[in-house]
């Protein structure tokens, strides 16, 4: 969903730039809580993996394709604030080095792919973690559910931005329907990749999965209680 230069007018791009800069500044402070000697290298690897995975476009129906956005994935693996930073680094490197996504659209792309997908993905994940049984096995499906919803929501937010500052006079209802339709299908791919990757990391090193930590803590406490009683 990388927005190129020119889709949105200057005021809208400037506004999303301010939103993105503020979110990055807040995340730089808040991510300290999520990052230590152990998780900082993990966060670097997650950002690197998201960059690599975004190169893989999978076919979606008639002549179109989609790729992982990775907001939900990164949020569950390394925490939401660190995830915003992961995606921001990815998007800046893509725009500057690969000409993928416009330079004036960096703020827009960070807002859509770095903030919206992280917020929706993490929000859905935390909600499900609360209502589902406190087992480690729910982490991957809950992450997948967050991923599934994050893509169409990001598509809707783009459509909203386009309604405000789009540079071409088009039928907004048609844009909304098409964006929502295609990105719901792409969301299924996002959910599949996210679920698979989170499940693999949970299987190998559950302690490195940020979203799994409250469940692991409970498991340790239960074990201790059983041993001491």
């Amino acid at each position, binding site marked *: *969903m*990388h*927005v190129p*230069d*020119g*889709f949105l007018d200057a005021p809208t791009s400037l506004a999303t730039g301010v939103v993105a800069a503020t979110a990055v500044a807040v995340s*730089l402070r808040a991510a*300290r809580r999520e*990052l*230590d*000697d*152990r*998780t*900082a*290298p993990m*966060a*670097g*690897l997650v*950002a*690197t*993996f998201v*960059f*690599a*995975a975004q*190169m*893989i*476009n999978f076919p*979606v129906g008639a*002549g*179109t*394709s989609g*790729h992982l956005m990775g907001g939900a994935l990164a949020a569950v693996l390394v925490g939401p604030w*660190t995830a915003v*930073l*992961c995606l921001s*680094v990815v998007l800046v*490197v893509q*725009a500057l*080095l*690969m*000409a*993928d*996504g*416009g*330079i004036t659209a960096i703020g827009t792309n960070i807002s859509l792919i770095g903030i919206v997908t992280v917020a929706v993905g993490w929000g859905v994940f935390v909600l499900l973690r609360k209502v589902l049984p406190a087992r480690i096995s729910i982490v991957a499906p809950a992450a997948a559910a967050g991923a599934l919803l994050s893509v169409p929501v990001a*598509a809707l937010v*783009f459509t909203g931005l386009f309604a405000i500052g789009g*540079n*071409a006079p*088009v039928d907004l209802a*048609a*844009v909304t329907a*098409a*964006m929502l339709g*295609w*990105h719901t299908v792409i969301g299924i791919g996002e959910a599949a990749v996210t679920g698979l990757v989170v499940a693999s990391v949970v299987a*190998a*090193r559950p*302690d*490195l999965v940020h979203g799994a930590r409250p469940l692991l803590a409970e498991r340790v406490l239960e074990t201790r209680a059983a041993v001491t009683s």
Partner: protein
Amino acid sequence: MSRRRFFVVALLVSLLVAGVASYYASSHPDGLEYVAEQTGFIDSAEDSATSDSPLADYQTTGIDDARLSGGLAGVVGVVVMLLLSTGLFWLIRRRDGSDATHDSRA
């Protein structure tokens, strides 16, 4: 799996995805591009100011073989990403030596 081993595997997977698997990715336009074509706002897109970058569009300038050109761009991208993001996260990490930093399994 030790943490070091896990990190090495994750890095190898990223290198393989970006350097090898990317060649087999779908070349159809992505969802946004496709919708822009169908609903008529694709022409408002402008070329990026970095479109003459040596790695623009994930192809390496001067290398004709598509597999090699794309693979090299992917590998360079992965190395740049690893250095930049790990550097950033290492710089802003907590340094109070609390809890997780003393993991005996590290």
